[in-house]
């Protein structure tokens, strides 16, 4: 019997204007990062509701990363500032509940930072992979 190698599932929410374009640039420059990263396009990082993040964990994601424009560069001027507060508090709360803090991350990636996007994803996947499966925020019904 072949043992399947554990590969984490990563959901990446990327804002349309900077980080999604940054991911595109990583593609243009053929910068590899693991296929476990699946990107969901949102207009702005401030569109990401904590419910989406928990939903991803419920459905089996092992890590969730939110990427937006650098503070000050938001296409909508202030969206990422709200993201910054919301996620700082949410991640702190998840940590408070004993959820591994390495499973969540916010990273600012500009449209010019294809390389940063790729290294960020490589690093994030590696960190999450070292934690193993998400057990503390899983919903067993979604495991089968």
């Amino acid at each position, binding site marked *: 019997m072949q043992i399947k190698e554990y590969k984490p599932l990563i959901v990446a929410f990327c804002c349309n204007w900077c980080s999604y374009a940054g991911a595109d640039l990583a593609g243009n420059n053929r910068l590899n990062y693991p296929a476990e990263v699946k990107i969901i396009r949102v207009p702005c990082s401030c569109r990401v509701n*904590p*419910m989406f993040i928990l939903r991803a964990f419920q459905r089996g994601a092992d890590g969730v990363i939110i990427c937006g424009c650098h503070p*000050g560069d938001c296409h909508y001027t202030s969206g990422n500032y709200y993201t*910054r507060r919301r996620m700082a*508090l949410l991640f702190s709360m*998840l940590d*408070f*509940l004993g959820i591994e803090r390495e499973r969540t991350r916010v990273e600012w990636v500009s449209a010019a930072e294809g390389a940063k996007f790729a290294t960020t994803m490589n690093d994030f996947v590696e960190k999450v992979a070292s934690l193993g499966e998400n057990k503390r925020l899983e919903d067993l019904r979604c495991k089968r």
Partner: protein
Amino acid sequence: MQKITLESLVEKAVSLLENGTVTSVLGWKKGEFDYDITPAVFESADELKKDFVWNDFCGANFSKYLVSKTCKSEGKILVFLKPCDTYSFNQLLTEHRFDREKVYAVGIPCEGMADINKVKEVVGDGISKIESNGDDLVVTTIYEDAPVKVTCKDVLAERCVNCKSKRHVAYDELLGEEGEVIASERFDEVERLEKMTPEERFAFWQNELSKCIRCNACRDVCPACTCEKCVFDNPNSGVENKAASNSFEEKMFHIIRAFHVAGRCTDCGECSRVCPQNIPLHLLNRKFIKDINEFYGEYQAGAEVGLRAPLVDYTLEDLEPGEVFDRRDNNA
């Protein structure tokens, strides 16, 4: 023992009713025992004299009732507010949840409310009578011939042990003496948890939240939870559920609820008071309050009407989410 007397409250209510300032009174109504007190609307002096009660078990925060009561009644309603209740009162006003014009708020001092569970830990079941006597409660049970004395201080509800303020931040009229904001130790328990390992914290919350029966009492009593329809009741929200099917859904409900009230929660402690499973839900809210204070500067929801809640605000220099843990690790 409360410093302000039942008689003075009734007298105030009766006079306001009789001089036409208000048409109804939101107050505490006598129960079967001396501790099972129900919030009620009184409309006459007779009712007040017969059933109004004020003792060490009048914990209920009336602020939220104003949302529905001011909507229905034509006249003004008198509401008695303890200091902690006034914060909720202001926060609801900030969010335009009730009509201030229809309310006559009377601030009353509070010496802290007793927790009947703590009383029972001392005297056991079978309580037939509880009387106040100075700093003590005198408890009579069916099992002992002699009543048992319990010091009020020893049976205070958790939220009163860690009372954050005896100062009223809103009222039309104040009875008794005004108190002060208190430098409480309310974050100690949060800190204790923060110092645990993630595994210990996880075990702690797993144990606590697994008790949840999703009765929604915490939500339904919460003055910050005044949504017309809660996301957890809305089939279109994607998170609706009636019962927590597993530990994920238990966490989901409490995380999202705490997040939704973050920056708006005044730390009134009603959630923990009403939880039939004794889950220390206030710790979740306090965690957010503590983080907000540490990350963005001291903030007390409801301290004034019109304050901008921290989650609908920002500064250019805010902490990065990634720095949250660095900072805590460095402090530890």
